[in-house]
């Protein structure tokens, strides 16, 4: 393993130090438990939007803290969900009478730890609600499993609920909006190589020189199936089919298309894939009205991409377009 790190156990703390000094205008970082909090938190009268999860997916979530998006992010160790006291710390630092929405990705660890934190907050008479995002179509959804994972849709969910909270929506409204977004966003990911977790020192899985993991998660968990390497046209076609057929998205639907790099994919390839996805959606009569292209929810240095589609309506489009100012997403301000 070659990495630009010191002690593997200190990677998250040291990285957060860099984030703090680079973006002191937007956020503050606290140590032990680690927290990233909006510089002007708590914002009076505003619903707090809080998210978090294991580290290694940067810019998710710390890179999305700032006006128009998250009030706080709770980074756990690499690929390991944070503990309830950390989540509680984030709630305490951001939440007033307007309450807070916790955005939780559907992983057993995240769900359990955020659940516990929400219970503790309720005991302190704070109005805290949780939504669980599970947009990954790679995983069979069933009440007999842990269910679908939360992946790329999380970024869109955080932007849109953040915008609603920023304009002053009530907790009821923000929560309802979040559930609506979760209901109409779907994603699929692929990996061409594995990430290496610093404290492990070896790649999280072994992939042959001509193999692709189709339906990969963001923690190096294996996906739906292993397929032979194929052309970008074929691979993106397979991904579009998986996402579109799931909701399903239909001819005439207006959508946001999010083409995400898993970390190690050159931007040259990312835009190439994005162009193919746009073309395939156009062929199906699906109208791409907004797009996001870049490394926004990653798996360390893993090479691969994910595609996320969100069905848009006027309200969602307006909230997507609303100003946002965070380390990783910024427009309008």
């Amino acid at each position, binding site marked *: 393993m070659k990495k630009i790190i010191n002690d593997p156990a200190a990677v998250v703390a040291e990285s957060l130090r860099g984030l703090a000094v680079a973006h002191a205008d937007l956020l503050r970082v606290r140590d032990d*438990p680690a927290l990233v909090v909006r510089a002007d938190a708590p914002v009076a009268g505003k619903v707090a939007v809080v998210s978090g999860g*294991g580290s290694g997916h940067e810019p998710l979530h710390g890179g999305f803290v700032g006006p128009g998006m998250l009030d706080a992010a709770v980074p*756990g*160790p*690499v*690929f*390991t*969900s*944070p*503990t*309830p*006291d950390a989540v509680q710390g984030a709630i305490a630092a951001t939440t007033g009478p307007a309450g807070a929405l916790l955005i939780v990705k559907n*992983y*057993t*660890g995240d769900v*359990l*730890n955020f*659940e*516990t934190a929400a219970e503790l907050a309720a005991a302190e008479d704070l109005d805290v609600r949780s939504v669980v995002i599970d947009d990954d179509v*790679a*995983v*069979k959804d069933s009440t*007999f*499993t*842990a269910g679908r*994972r939360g992946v790329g849709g999380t970024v869109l969910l955080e932007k849109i609920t953040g915008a609603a909270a920023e304009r002053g929506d009530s907790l009821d409204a923000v929560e309802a909006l979040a559930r609506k977004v979760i209901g109409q966003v779907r994603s699929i990911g692929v990996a061409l190589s594995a990430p290496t*977790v610093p*404290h*492990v020192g*070896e790649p*999280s*899985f072994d992939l042959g020189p001509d193999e692709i993991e189709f339906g990969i*998660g963001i*923690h*190096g*968990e*294996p*996906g739906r199936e292993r397929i032979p390497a194929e052309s970008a046209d074929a691979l993106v076609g397979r991904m579009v089919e998986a996402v579109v057929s799931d909701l399903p998205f239909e001819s005439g639907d207006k959508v946001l298309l999010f083409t995400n790099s898993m970390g190690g994919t050159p931007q040259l390839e990312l835009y190439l894939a994005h162009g193919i996805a746009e073309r395939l959606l156009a062929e199906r009569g699906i109208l791409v009205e907004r797009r996001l292209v870049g490394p926004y929810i990653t798996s360390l240095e893993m090479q691969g991409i994910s595609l996320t589609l969100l069905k848009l309506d006027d309200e969602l489009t307006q909230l997507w377009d609303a100003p946002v100012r965070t380390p990783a997403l910024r427009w309008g301000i």
Partner: protein
Amino acid sequence: MACTAEGVAAALRAAAEVIAEHRTELVDLDRAIGDADHGENLSRGFTAIVSALETGVPETPAGVAKLAATTLISKVGGAAGPLYGTAFLRASAKLGDAAEIDVPLLLDALRAALEGVQARGKAVGGDATMVDALIPAVSAAEGAADGTIADVLTAAADGADRGAESTVDLIPRKGRASYLGERAVGHMDPGARSTALLLRAFAEAAR
């Protein structure tokens, strides 16, 4: 060793050593069907328990168990943190203010731990999780109720070993391994394995 607060603390220290020794094994099991952190998560948690005990051992076995619970909850994260944390919390509640744990109390505590894990994680037997180690551990412990604390814990550890072994052939239905479906068959569940290791460490400590 008597099952006083000091005895429980000693058992936890022994468990921390075992977890440290098996850190890589647990990481590798998790690497195969999960996200390669189970060994790291538990080491972090048990190291923190040992430190917490250094600043003072609580007066009762229940107090020690509660300290373990809160430490695991606040240090481990992931799925294992809340699950093991709940197990110790429920066990602690059963132990009440007893100065020493006897066999009936131990069985109550073990049952409470299992119930806690199931209440929190919603897994049943056969889902290929730590529950598959805990269920046979509790029944084996109940079967050894005539023996000493060490006998009961040894039986529990034997049961947990068999349970962990049984997860190799199961299709996981809870936790991260469930994403893999049939591709996870052939791999032992890391949480089931760590449950077996912990019970074995407690059993050895009780000798």
